[in-house]
């Protein structure tokens, strides 16, 4: 069903085409660039009372702006004009129908303008409702049975068999499977693998894993295929001994990222060659190269943030700033060497320490790019951009020349958490950096031997403990009282582009 407005709008279009609508929308409703904002600020006020109004309408037949209510309606009535554009939301109004009208093509043009505006102001695009494609509509019709997820339902929970000291893998898989954005991606079947050997693709394997988790079956799963793929692609993790869960997490993200890029380039070259019929040799080699932090694969969209480091020269106060992408934030737990040897007690303490300016000392002089001489300097980290999922790694395992030890001190971490104080640009008045805890990986035992378990948020306010094949209910208190090794936080408000 397509929307075509009303017959008054159709006859208006015959006479005036879409041009007036497009220009008025671009300049006075969406304000696509600086010029448009200037024009709106100067010219766009009510012709009747001069006010900039709570809600202004623009007549689409002639040059006229008027406030909602009497001012615009008296104009439309006296001039016998029908169509006006409401400017704060960009909705079309028909005076003859006394109603708002919706026309599919006008809405397409309006969306283009909204995208231009968002780009120009570097802001998130407003939320758009989901409109199923033809393929999705057919799928919905063909599968009429719907499944309603109620509280206390166990769908989405599966235990994972321990294949011989593989709890480091099980706890990471549980955390990944319970990452809302990742499950949205895989449950909507978004991974298109161009690779002929999809059994070698880790992304395909994770996709299958999601199907298994949500199949409704309750018996524990065996992750032997996943483990084998990781062994093949991250050689340093191959072998039967216990591995570090954090190392496994980063390696998994890395392999997933590489396979996403590979699948995409192969998928594109395949569709290129089938459309052009000429071998598809023009597929860009740049897309297959390692473009960590800049590509748009699902892993980077969810997990990649940008760290800013400012090195300040103590002689001339010149600042040199560099940016580095990150997948997680590793936090020190030991005593600080300065500030009287304080040990951090909370996650916030750790982050404050992480983002504090650090004096690099006389032994580490750096050549300052401003005054061109080797000087002492300070270095300060801050977060330039945050990913949708922020994971913190509490460095509980300390390896030094003298001793290897595990730091088991209690670090308090919050459920809800605002990251604004740690951002590079605190002046950005619009950023929303609130996060919620959704998974905690714990290590029980000593540095040599131990066992990994995970707490994951199954539904809102429902937590479960995943201990290999055993899944048990857990309270929030248990989660917050646990030691914590890896902490996973999810952004509360998402941005769109």
């Amino acid at each position, binding site marked *: 069903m397509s929307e075509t407005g009303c017959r008054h709008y159709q006859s208006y279009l015959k006479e005036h085409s879409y041009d007036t609508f497009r220009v008025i929308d671009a300049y006075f409703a969406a*304000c696509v660039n600086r010029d448009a*904002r*200037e024009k*709106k*600020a*100067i010219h*766009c*006020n009510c012709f009747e009372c*001069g*006010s*900039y109004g709570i809600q202004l309408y623009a007549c689409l037949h002639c040059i006229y702006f008027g406030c909602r*209510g009497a001012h615009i309606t008296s104009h439309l009535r006296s001039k016998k004009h029908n169509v006006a554009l409401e400017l*704060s939301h960009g909705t079309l109004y028909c005076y003859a129908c*006394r*109603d*708002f009208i919706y026309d599919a093509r006008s809405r397409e043009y309006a969306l283009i303008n909204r995208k231009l*505006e968002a780009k*120009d*102001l570097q*802001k*998130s695009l*407003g*939320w758009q409702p989901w409109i199923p494609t033809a393929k999705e509509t057919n799928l919905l019709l063909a599968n009429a049975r719907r499944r309603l997820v109620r509280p206390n339902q166990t769908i989405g929970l599966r235990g994972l068999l321990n294949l011989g000291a593989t709890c480091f893998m099980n706890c990471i898989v549980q955390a990944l499977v319970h990452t809302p954005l990742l499950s949205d991606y895989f449950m909507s079947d978004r991974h298109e693998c161009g690779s002929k050997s999809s059994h070698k693709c880790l992304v395909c394997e994770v996709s299958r894993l999601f199907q298994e988790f949500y199949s409704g079956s309750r018996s524990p799963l065996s992750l032997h295929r996943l483990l084998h793929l990781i062994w093949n692609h991250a050689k340093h993790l191959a072998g039967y001994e216990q591995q570090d869960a954090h190392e496994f997490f980063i390696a998994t993200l890395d392999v997933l990222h590489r396979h996403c890029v590979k699948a995409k380039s192969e998928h594109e070259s395949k569709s290129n060659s089938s459309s052009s019929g000429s071998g598809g040799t023009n597929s860009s080699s740049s897309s297959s190269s390692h473009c960590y932090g800049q590509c748009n694969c699902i892993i980077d969209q969810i997990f990649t943030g940008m760290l800013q480091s400012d090195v300040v020269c103590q002689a001339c106060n010149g600042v040199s700033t560099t940016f580095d992408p990150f997948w997680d934030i590793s936090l020190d737990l030991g005593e600080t060497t300065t500030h009287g040897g304080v040990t951090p007690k909370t996650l916030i303490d750790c982050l404050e320490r992480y983002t504090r300016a650090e004096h690099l000392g006389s032994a580490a002089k750096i050549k300052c790019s401003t005054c061109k001489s080797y000087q002492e300097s300070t270095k300060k980290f801050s977060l330039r951009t945050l990913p949708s999922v922020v994971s913190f790694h509490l460095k509980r395992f300390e390896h030094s020349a003298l001793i290897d030890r595990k730091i088991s001190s209690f670090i308090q971490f919050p459920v809800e958490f605002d990251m604004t104080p740690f951002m590079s640009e605190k*002046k950005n*008045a*619009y950023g*929303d950096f609130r996060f919620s805890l959704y998974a905690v990986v714990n290590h029980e035992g000593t540095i040599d031997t131990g066992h990994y378990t995970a707490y994951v948020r199954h539904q809102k306010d429902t937590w479960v403990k995943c201990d290999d094949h055993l899944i048990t209910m857990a309270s929030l208190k248990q989660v917050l009282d646990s030691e914590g090794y890896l902490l996973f936080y999810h952004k509360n*408000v998402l941005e769109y582009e």
Partner: protein
Amino acid sequence: MTVSNAVDQFTMLTGDRSKIKDLLCSRLTECGWRDEVRLLCRSILLEKGSNNSFTVEQLVSEVTPKARTLVPDAVKKELLMKIRTILTENENEDDDDDEVEEQEDEP
């Protein structure tokens, strides 16, 4: 020109108006206001919608006063603080025009 008009013009020019609007929309969605107003519209339509002459203007005029009272104080307060911050920040930047120029050149 009145102060209110000057503020309107200024916020339009900088693009802040559009961002404030977005912020307000997301806060109203988060706190459930949007759903409440939707339900309100629904119940009014169920009551009076059978009457074919009931127009969108009548619906708006009936819903608006109730919807206004439903906006939580916390949201109003936050928005007010944001607008105040934006205006005072600009006041400071106006004193030092060169700095503003430099900042705008950054990518």
